[in-house]
């Protein structure tokens, strides 16, 4: 006689009258394939855990964002925010779509140059640019976004010494009605610092002020805040026009559009509630178009959108190591990836699906990573079908920041693959090994041996 298929016995308390806020039904529909490639085969070939990036999703998302802005404003330029995901294959998909690069450190700057981005199309942001970085950016005519007065004076000196006229913008921070206000970067609008810095640059006449920049925050859920920011930058640009008869070439609105993730503690799913590109585009373009620029003097609109362009395209595949019962009766499932490779689980309740078919029964669980640390929690509450050892799971919407902020702590970093438009799988970052880890270590001679 053929035996019946086994499922672990389950009993679950029913809370009548209470909506189950911890798991939406969609969370446990099995996700067996990504772009028609089976999760099982990916793990078999590249190991577990494994990051998977869908090139199709990147390009579709980019086209969607581009359409939202270009149908509303005549001159739009995206600049790929390297820190969001700087694996070269990922960057180059964006560059192929037409994105410039936006970098915040020397190594990111050189990564963009090595990828083939012309210097004049690399925007150099951030508070910590070394003198070498600044010299390289000046030589390559990259727009340098000035963060503080020390940098402004330093650039003035370098301009004289190098006999060049560096292209610069200033970063402006401002009150857009959202809390917390990011006022540690750049010059403040309301207290006049920004206007002061602008006057200093123009009157010293050593730098070419080409743009104005703001980045009002990250994972912003309020499109109207961008409208406020765009109005304030426009106001500065028009002030410059009036006082110095000089056109500002571009307004850079930074990044920060929310992706489809669900913030921790939020009751509704991000995919249903977060604003889309059209809403951000409407707010920004209306503000600039109504600001009072002459039609032939409209500045280029630059966007440094990061997470909203890549989050959806990234998946993390993993496997179940073990199941446990906690002292309060809750089920705990231990997975082979933790906060070491999924930094964003500190911010989001990531959607996690089983990668194989299941019956209709589910249970509330906690998902833990494999680190020997209490903070290694992937989801505090999730409703999933009973998972057993070596079953696979798919974490969704992990394309942003995880592949740059991942830690090499206890475990080595996993491989990253990209599925191309023909559903062919490419390895784009190898799984790390001990040799890679130790490549930067130096063992002094006297510590090379010991007796035990």
């Amino acid at each position, binding site marked *: 006689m053929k*035996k*019946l*298929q*086994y*499922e*672990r*016995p*389950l*009993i*679950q*308390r*029913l809370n*009548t009258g209470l909506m189950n806020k911890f798991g939406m039904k969609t969370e446990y529909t099995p996700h067996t394939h990504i772009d028609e490639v089976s999760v099982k085969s990916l793990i078999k070939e590249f190991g577990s855990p494994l990051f998977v990036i869908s090139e199709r999703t990147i390009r579709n998302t980019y086209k969607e964002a581009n359409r939202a802005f270009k149908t509303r404003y005549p001159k739009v330029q995206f600049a790929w925010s390297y820190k969001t995901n700087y694996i070269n294959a990922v960057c180059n998909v964006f560059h192929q779509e037409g994105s410039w690069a936006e970098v915040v450190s020397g190594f990111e700057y050189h990564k963009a140059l090595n990828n083939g981005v012309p210097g004049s199309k690399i925007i150099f942001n951030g508070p910590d640019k070394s003198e070498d970085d600044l010299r390289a950016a000046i030589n390559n005519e990259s727009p340098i976004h000035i963060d503080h007065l020390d940098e402004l004076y330093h650039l003035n000196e370098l301009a004289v010494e190098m006999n060049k006229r560096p292209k610069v913008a200033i970063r402006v921070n401002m009150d857009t009605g959202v809390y917390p206000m990011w006022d540690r970067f750049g010059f403040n609008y309301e207290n006049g610092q920004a206007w002061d810095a602008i006057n200093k640059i123009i009157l010293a006449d050593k730098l070419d002020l080409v743009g104005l920049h703001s980045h009002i925050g990250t994972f912003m859920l309020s499109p109207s805040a961008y409208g406020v920011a765009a109005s304030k930058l426009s106001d500065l640009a028009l002030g410059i026009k009036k006082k110095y008869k000089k056109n500002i070439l571009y307004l850079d609105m930074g990044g920060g559009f929310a992706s489809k993730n669900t913030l921790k503690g939020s009751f509704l799913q991000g995919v249903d509630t977060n604003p889309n590109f059209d809403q951000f585009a409407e707010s920004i373009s209306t503000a600039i178009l109504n600001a009072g620029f002459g039609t032939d003097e409209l500045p280029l609109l630059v966007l440094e959108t990061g997470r909203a362009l890549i989050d959806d395209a990234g998946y993390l595949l993993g496997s179940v190591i073990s*199941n446990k*019962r906690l002292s309060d*009766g809750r089920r705990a499932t231990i997975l082979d990836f933790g906060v070491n490779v999924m930094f964003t689980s500190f911010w989001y309740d990531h959607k996690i699906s089983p990668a194989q078919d299941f*019956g*209709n*029964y589910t249970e509330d669980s906690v998902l833990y990573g494999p680190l020997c640390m209490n903070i290694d929690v992937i989801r505090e509450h999730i409703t999933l079908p009973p998972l*057993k050892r070596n079953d696979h799971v798919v974490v969704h919407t992990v394309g942003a920041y995880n592949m740059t902020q991942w830690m090499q702590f206890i475990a080595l970093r996993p491989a990253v693959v990209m599925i191309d438009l023909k559903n062919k799988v490419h390895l784009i970052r190898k799984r790390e090994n001990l040799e890679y880890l130790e490549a930067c270590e130096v063992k002094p001679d006297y510590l090379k041996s010991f007796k035990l």
Partner: protein
Amino acid sequence: MKIKKNIALSDTGFVFNPASGDSFSVNPIGLEIMKLLQENKSHDVIKKHLLETYSVDKDTIEKDFYDFAKMLEQFKVTETDEKKES
């Protein structure tokens, strides 16, 4: 370990404790186990039955049965043989 006498088990896997008002849902294999417990079958007999009926190995049954039994205890739908029902 026995299922308390007053516990109601429906064929759809709905479990109700009229004394506390608690209700639970069990999956089909959980229901099967609870029914066998109601019939006063011993743990060993039940485990043997599961092993014969389902495609599963002995270790998994041991582990899962132990876990399920603990949950029944935790949800107070069982009583130990020695203890009289209050």
